[in-house]
């Protein structure tokens, strides 16, 4: 029997593939699925993804046999990407918030001084006095030089602070400065775009020799150059999220990027032979509606559920542990993680008896953090629930959200844990009272549902079309879904969920068990069928 093969093309910008993030999780799940079905994978990607991709595949917890994947990628990483990498390394070293090196050296020197000098004094003679005088003079000279350096450094830092303060103020100079900054930002975006275009061409030339034998599935619809170069390409279209929240995305720094993307998506889909979406909603409203692409075959392939429990297999499988062992393990993982944070409040925080909600998501305009924070405020201040909210998004990056948090004194009630590993995420999920996803839009049923249920935690979700597409039963919808635009409704549901956690889990379990019957191998098989459909 002829070996089944499929080509996957992933064309992401640099630094996108990080463990635990949506794209990586999806990619790994699909790769596992293909391998379980015995389908050989040819993976094509830009040069800059080589290290990240191979690390992801080799990582401890993934069960992907990367020796059975053929990797296709241009050899040379563009210079501008290398340069950017080293610049960001330098930046992070300079801004590392550990004890300053100078202070460490000074303290070490002081300790030496405290220990050695009394001994020396005890053995003092005339030649050692001369030596000491010389040593003292050298020390004074060194001290003066160091002081000069430190003072200069402080002056520079102060100047920088004054400058950035001036930029914040609305004056003519700052407007010009902001214009320059915006132009630089726009140039950056266009540079990335040109980089991707150029790399796509190189990649296309590497793919070309495979001819018609292999069908290719392009993971992202942003690069029409790629789509044009491949025979009968199948393009995966997740969604066009900035259509759902245009003002939110319109106000962010990547606006130009989104506009370029929108055009590219349309071009790419037009060039495709087939399109895969994750939901009927995105098929109808985004592809056929917003993008007006009505002449292509579109297959809806829902995701399979994700199971985080495997990340908690340490000495024994997580499923074999007793309830108290599971809890103890997760507490250990979370406590050890909190100790690593540079945060006095959290590093010593005993989370063992704290009820918390968990929202695992990136920071995006459609993720609805604002309403969630408002609901939390209501629950704590007016309903007196002693709860916290743990979020995995880097909320500090959003000024409005930060202001809401500090104005309402919620900085200790909202625990921000960005970029945590899958293991730590799984542990947080297990310990959470409830998982919640108040998103205004997603391409498919949020992974929150299966992630949480896989480790024994019930979930509350937004009532949005993609969720109602999967969870049909109106009675269950009434219990587990809330209106993401209604803070009171959200708070009400959360309050009920907190008081009826076990019941909520029991209600959701049959739904989750039903979903589990469909695996990533089934999803991979479907992708294969779509790709090879005539």
């Amino acid at each position, binding site marked *: 029997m002829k070996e089944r093969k499929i080509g996957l093309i992933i064309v992401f910008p640099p630094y996108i593939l990080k463990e635990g993030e949506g794209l990586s999780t999806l990619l790994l799940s699909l790769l596992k699925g293909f391998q379980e079905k015995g389908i050989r994978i040819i993976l094509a990607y830009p040069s800059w993804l080589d290290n990240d991709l191979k690390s992801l595949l*080799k990582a*401890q917890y993934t069960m992907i046999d990367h020796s059975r994947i053929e990797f296709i990628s241009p050899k040379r990483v563009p210079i501008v990407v290398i340069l950017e990498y080293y610049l960001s390394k330098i930046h992070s070293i300079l801004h590392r918030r550990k004890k300053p090196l100078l202070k460490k050296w000074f303290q070490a020197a002081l300790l030496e001084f405290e220990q050695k000098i009394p001994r020396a004094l005890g053995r003092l003679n005339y030649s050692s006095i001369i030596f000491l005088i010389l040593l003292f003079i050298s020390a004074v000279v060194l001290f003066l030089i160091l002081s000069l350096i430190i003072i200069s450094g402080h002056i520079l830092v102060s100047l920088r602070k004054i400058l950035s303060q001036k930029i914040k103020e609305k004056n003519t100079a700052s407007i010009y400065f902001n214009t320059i900054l915006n132009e630089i930002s726009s140039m950056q975006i266009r540079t990335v775009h040109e980089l991707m275009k150029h790399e796509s061409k190189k990649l296309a030339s590497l793919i070309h020799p495979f001819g018609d034998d292999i069908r290719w599935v392009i993971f992202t619809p942003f690069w029409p150059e790629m789509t044009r170069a491949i025979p009968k390409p199948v393009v995966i279209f997740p969604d066009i999220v900035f259509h759902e929240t245009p003002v939110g995305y319109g106000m962010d720094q990547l606006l130009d990027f989104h506009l370029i993307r929108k055009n590219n998506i349309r071009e790419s889909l037009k060039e495709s032979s087939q399109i895969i979406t994750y939901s009927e909603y995105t098929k109808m409203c985004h592809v056929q509606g917003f993008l007006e692409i009505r002449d292509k075959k579109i297959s809806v392939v829902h995701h399979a559920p994700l199971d985080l429990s495997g990340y908690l297999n*340490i*000495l*024994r499988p997580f499923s074999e542990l007793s309830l*108290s*062992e599971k809890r*103890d*393990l997760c*507490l*250990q993982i979370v*406590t050890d993680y909190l100790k690593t944070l540079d945060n*006095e*409040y*959290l590093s*010593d*925080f*005993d*989370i*063992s*008896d*704290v*009820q918390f909600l968990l929202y695992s998501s990136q920071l995006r305009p459609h993720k609805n953090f604002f309403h969630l924070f408002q609901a939390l405020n209501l629950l*704590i*201040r*007016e309903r*007196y629930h*002693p*709860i*916290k909210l743990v979020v995995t998004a880097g909320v500090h990056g959003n000024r409005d959200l930060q202001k809401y948090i*500090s*104005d*309402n*004194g919620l*900085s*200790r*009630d909202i625990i921000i844990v960005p970029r945590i590993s899958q293991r730590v995420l799984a542990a947080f999920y297990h310990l959470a009272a409830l998982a919640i996803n108040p998103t205004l839009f997603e391409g498919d049923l949020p992974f929150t549902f299966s992630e949480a249920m896989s480790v024994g935690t019930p979930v509350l979700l937004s009532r949005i079309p993609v969720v109602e597409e999967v969870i049909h039963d109106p009675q269950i919808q009434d219990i587990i879904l809330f209106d993401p635009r209604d803070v009171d409704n959200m708070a009400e549901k959360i309050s009920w969920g907190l008081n009826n956690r076990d019941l909520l889990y029991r209600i959701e379990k049959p739904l989750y068990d039903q979903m589990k019957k469909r695996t990533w191998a089934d999803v991979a098989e479907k992708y294969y069928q779509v790709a090879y459909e005539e």
Partner: protein
Amino acid sequence: MSECVAEKKRRVLWIINHQTLMDFEPYILRDLGYEVYIPKLFPQSEENRSGKVTYDFDSSLTIPREVLDQLNEFNFYRTKITPTIRSSINNYFDIAIIAAFPHLVEQFITAFEGRIILRVFGHASNTYAKIFEDRYPGFKQAVINLGDRFFFGTAFQHLEDIEPDYIRSRTLYLPIGLPQVFFAQKNTWIGDEDFIFFVCPVINSSPYYQNIYRNFTRFFKGFDYKIGGKQLVQVDDPAVIGSLTREEFDSYLRHCRVMFYHSEEPYHLHHHPLEAMAFGVPVIFMKKGLLGRLGQELPGASKNYREARQKVARVIRGDQEFIKNIQKSQYRILENFSYEYCIRRWRESFATLIKERQGVKQKRKHKIALFVPGSYKSGTFDAARAIAKIIHEKSKNSGSPVHVVLSVQAGVHGYETIKKIKEEGIDLRETKWEIVDRDRAKKIANLTGILSEMRHSHYYVPRDFVDDFMDCDLWICVSDSFMYPIFPLKRYGVVVHDVLMKYFPEYQQGPLYYSRILQNRGADFILTTTPQTRDDVISYYGIASDRVFLVPIDYSNEDRYLSTQVPTSPYILWPTNAAVHKNHLNAFKALMRYYSLGGTYKIVITGWDVNVFDLSYNCPEDQLLSLPHIAETRRYLEREKSARDKIEIRSNLEKQECYDILKRAAFLFCPTMIDNGTFAVIDAGLYKVPMCCSDYPQMRYLDETFNLKISFFNPRSPDEMAEKMLEMEQTWDKRKMNLPSQQELIAKIERKRDEYWDIMQGLL
């Protein structure tokens, strides 16, 4: 609390959880006549890949089921010992054998009153004394303070040779044994496959083992070998076979031609070479290691890798005479690990242990210090006094009197107050709080033998310039308002009356914010007086629930004449102060609304610093006036002139004056947004004055506890508050009749004092 050691059940806490040790040591203890408890939770990490749990010994423990369940739910390796666990281990166990983990050492030295055996197997690079002294400056003194209660339980002889005197003199030789099942494998070695079996885990994750691996592969190049041991990161060597099940490991032992054991650590020994020897596998090992010290002149011992290679080559070549010599000699080493040898030596050591502890522990009176920070004169001080009285009186009545020391700041309290406290039998000590930095704190720890890592930059130390409260067994801080965490020279608890910072951003600034959190986290236990505050402490301060106790309200109804009165010229009484959570703006808005709806009663406002709401008060030095919530309220009052003549402000009154005003009031009005529930409602209950109050959990709790029949309103809604006040104006006299009697309320208060003592007893 007298006890005879000989009478106490022979029970041992065995806090080690190592799988191979578990197959031997608990059985030896059982054979020596001890009941053994083994923890059911231990850190699940790659470092503890040899960890194991067993329930096999639970059924033979003659302790109450609920105590066993509590112990089984507790992770000794990671969690601070709670008061409940402390009580359990001290009541039911006489000996604790603990692994040499810093956390266990700290916790057991601090909390366990029985004998502690530190179980040691040798350390690769350091003495145990250095390891613990570096981490805890007070370690040496702490061990010395323990006297005959601390032992250095060595698995191999001469491990103590490199330790300092204070450790060496406490050595107890408890040889490590191999479980019988390994001796049952005697002569099962076949050796039919031509490979060296070598154990080297975590090759690509540990620089130490990576070096071992490199040396091995360099010196044994050309031989076939198989390398067992768990690998966390894949190793690109087909000879590395990774983690093995017990059966697989035994199979490799049986079929390998020879084992090589690499260790040159003089004070540490792995298990696997012993297991191999028991099978009859010829083991080539390094003379410099501990195995070498047990069998220096044995044929399997090698002085370097070159010699080891030569010997391995001889075995691989099939030099039968050499192999037989090695096997015969190995049995001599194994004798040191046999059951017979071990039980004999353990029995000898335990005989020493028991001999040193014969005798009766004398009854001793406990002493508790109660600290009141700052210059608190009323609320917090009254609470401290109430607690002192409860402990003093109730402990005396129970036959186990506790000496109570109340710490006060000099010059804060008047002569009459001090005289009265002394007459109640409570020892009063004037206290000065001094600040020590971390370095000084470490040195004091060194002197006193405190085991604490000193993570904070500064601490508060209470000074009475005599004993500095070191004569007390337990410290209780009747407030968490300390600028710095208290230096944990003694076990201490904190009474937390509220967690207002959770609800008000204004309280999340300033130096007290973090110090409160640190103070409470360092405490042995927290006492709260309402369930909501208890929940807030757990969730906001991040403290485990089994360290937070709900105690009855620390209210005292003394110091007053309890005569009630029917008001002839009724008015509303609003007791408050200038703090932001008192919800002044909404309250004044409600008041104005009440008058506009036809309300007629005047309102009397009492409390500390309430003169800030008197518009004629305008003292430039008073910083309270510049606080945003005060300024906003004053601006509102300036605009609302209509009912000014109906507002009477009586600031900073003495207690008796307050009671006089209370008893003549028509009803009490408490519009606080949230706090721990005000004692004013209990005062009002005693004087049979009806109340209308904000609806929040703590106030509801007071209402339920004392059946005060409070009428509730939403503190965010001035309209609702106004309507309630109007309703109270119309119904207060009827409500007064329905309030519980004074006797009923006094009886409830007294019952709460009994409950308070019951809880305190458990914490002592």
